[in-house]
């Protein structure tokens, strides 16, 4: 036997008759033996009948002739120029035949953006790297500017003793970052 949670979740569909016959039978049998779920069914049925009574029985019948006269008046009334423009645009641009236009516009936009990147690649990059000696005590500044990511690194450092001797000017001209 299915548990109460499943039964209660299916009760609405069961009352609507929108459930498989085998499930409907399981629910019917369960309701015969489970007072709590049967109480839930009664509540739902009362809710349904109250809703129907409220939503259907209390609505007055409307006379057709005056109703139709109102609709006809709207139909024969000449639309304003603004409505005509909106209607024209809707009929021209919302037609299923123009469904290809949206992906086409996206492809063109992507193309234009790619072109922009392409031009950037082709253009000269303005990257920059340099090492300068600040004073006579071996303190240096290394400067790296990278144009693509707009990054500038300023590195202050002092040569170790011996390094000067072993690598000399080579270190200054080709700094490693």
């Amino acid at each position, binding site marked *: 036997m299915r548990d109460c949670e499943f039964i209660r*979740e299916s009760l609405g569909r069961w009352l609507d008759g929108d459930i498989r016959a085998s499930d409907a039978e399981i629910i019917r049998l369960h309701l015969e033996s489970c007072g709590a779920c049967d109480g839930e069914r009664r509540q739902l049925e009362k809710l349904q009948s109250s809703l129907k009574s409220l939503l259907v029985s209390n609505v007055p019948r*409307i006379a057709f002739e005056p109703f139709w006269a109102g609709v006809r008046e709207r139909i024969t009334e000449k639309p304003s120029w603004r409505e005509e423009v909106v209607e024209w645009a809707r009929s021209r641009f919302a037609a299923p035949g123009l469904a290809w236009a949206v992906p086409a516009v996206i492809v063109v936009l992507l193309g234009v953006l790619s072109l922009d990147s392409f031009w950037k690649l082709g253009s000269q990059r303005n990257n920059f790297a340099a090492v300068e000696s600040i004073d006579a005590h071996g303190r240096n500044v290394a400067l790296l500017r990278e144009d693509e990511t707009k990054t500038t690194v300023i590195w202050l450092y002092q040569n170790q003793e011996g390094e000067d001797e072993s690598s000399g000017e080579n270190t200054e001209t080709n700094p490693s970052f």
Partner: protein
Amino acid sequence: MESSDWELVQKCQAGEIGAFQELVSRYHQKIYVVIVGLLRNREDALDVAQETFFRAYRKIKSFQGGSSFYTWLYRIAVNIAIDSQRRQKRNPLDFRETMDGLFEEQNEVARDPFSDVHDRELREKLVSAINDLTPEHKAVIILRTVEGLSYKDIGEILGCSEGTVMSRLHYARKKLQQKLSAFL
């Protein structure tokens, strides 16, 4: 022999306004009942119902018969009603007018089938509980309860899947049940 909806639609598309009049006479009451349920205001509902048929007339040439005519018509009606409801919620003045419409409904209680005091209270709570639902949840409840439409048809009207209709119905009923638990 009575013409089918599709035959009348084809005549409308050929320019016969009499055929459209016949369609209006078939569906005006049903459409009105659904809209009253959504808006809870009879005058607004009448206006929205007439607007529904007006828009249907203007769009009828684009109707290809892919769905039934009444499904198509309900879709137009529900969309206009939901838009109108959202506008009312954004506009405090219109919202007050809706509340006036509600009081008018409550004053008519003495003449309706909810004659017993307990039932009258239930009705008032029910109106308030329905008004608290979102337009989408309200729409599934009304289309199912008033028209007895299938989940599939409701899905077509609201532009969602049957599964969504099923879960919205379940949620809406649960909400109503919770708010009315003392009366059920």
